[in-house]
């Protein structure tokens, strides 16, 4: 009888958490996640736009690979894990959001060094007025300030979706180049630094990923130097085209195809939690 009562006592101890216990648990888990407090994103969050969709696929790829990974306990030593199965991640990422060209940095090598992956929605978008003389361009800007200071970005990609457009000869090759805007001067063209360029068949559709690692590290070190990136499109005859004409989706496109930026970075120190 007594042991049944004891068992009853044991099971009854797993009652639903009280308000205070819940707050305690939330505080502990937030401190493990390295968050100062509970984030408060503003709706609407559903349906998820392109960045969460991409990140959700990355999450599933990592979770599938993380299963066979485990840390041997090194007594009194921090368990050092590494992103495992990064090659598979590269396949999944390109399989899920196929980039039109193979130029992008192989996610595998990048993810294996990263601790955290962050995606940023496009903040500002402006483009050259079509009534102005060529060349046409489109600019994008991302707010990287949420990245914890002092981190090193191991890779950063700018992702933009290309749809099919009428009137384009499918077998024509388009040259799309992405520059970092380094310095703006009144009445003159800004100083640009080439980040990445890709040649894309006009008749294909899908995600394009440009390597913007050097720019994002630069912005991380000098946040005020973040003037964004500029994108140009040219034909093989060096004729400048507007991004919209060739089907590149901007902020006004469908949410699941809007451009975004994704950064992989490594935290320099394992976050130590304050003693309590």
């Amino acid at each position, binding site marked *: 009888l007594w042991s049944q009562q004891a068992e009853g006592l044991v099971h009854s101890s797993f009652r639903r958490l009280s308000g205070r216990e819940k707050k305690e648990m939330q505080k502990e888990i937030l401190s493990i*996640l390295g968050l100062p407090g509970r984030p408060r994103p503003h709706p609407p969050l559903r349906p998820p736009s392109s960045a*969460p969709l991409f990140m959700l696929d990355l999450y599933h790829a990592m979770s599938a690979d993380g299963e066979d990974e485990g840390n041997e306990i090194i007594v009194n030593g921090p368990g050092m894990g590494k992103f495992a199965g990064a090659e598979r991640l590269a396949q999944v990422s390109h399989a899920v959001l196929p980039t039109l060209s193979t130029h992008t940095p192989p996610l595998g090598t990048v993810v294996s060094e990263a*601790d955290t992956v962050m995606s940023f929605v496009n903040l500002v978008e402006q483009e050259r007025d079509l009534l102005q003389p060529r060349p046409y361009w489109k600019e994008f800007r991302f707010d990287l300030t949420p990245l914890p200071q002092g981190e090193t970005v191991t890779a950063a990609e700018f992702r933009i979706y290309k749809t099919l457009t009428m009137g384009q000869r499918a077998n024509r090759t388009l040259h799309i180049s992405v520059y970092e805007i380094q310095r703006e001067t009144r009445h003159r063209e800004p100083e640009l630094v080439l980040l990445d360029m890709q040649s894309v068949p006009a008749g294909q559709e899908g995600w394009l990923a440009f390597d913007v690692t050097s720019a994002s590290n630069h912005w991380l070190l000098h946040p005020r130097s973040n003037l964004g990136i500029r994108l140009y499109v040219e034909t093989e005859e060096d004729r400048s085209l507007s991004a919209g004409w060739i089907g590149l989706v901007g902020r006004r496109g469908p949410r699941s195809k809007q451009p975004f930026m994704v950064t992989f970075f490594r935290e320099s120190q394992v976050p130590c939690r304050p003693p309590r």
Partner: protein
Amino acid sequence: AVKPHPRKKKPKYDLPVPSIHNRSPANNGGQPCKKHELYVSFSDLGWKDWVLAPTGYSAYYCDGECFYPLGSCMNATNHAVIQQVVHLMKPDDVPKACCAPTKLSPISVLFYDDNNNVILKKHRNMVVKTCGC
């Protein structure tokens, strides 16, 4: 052979003390050290709006006795075997080997920050893979 401690009085009654944590073998039937289910639910914590994935995860915990002799099923380290033997010789000086995680794995958490950016973070040592003495 261990001599009985000269000064230690034999306790009159050794009724098992009912408590949740140090359950005596009486009511858990002397379970050997092993992994037990423990689920941490983010949705129970009211975090469904900002945690995209997972909704929670099985963290597990280790519990059970490290009986002598430590069988291979207990995944005991050599150190535990030695500690166990010394414990038998000097039970008052050296405690029994304890049941603890011997392998931990990470989990990845996908969540929104205050600016609706999406962050994917991997957190190490969040899930018990194997327990041992």
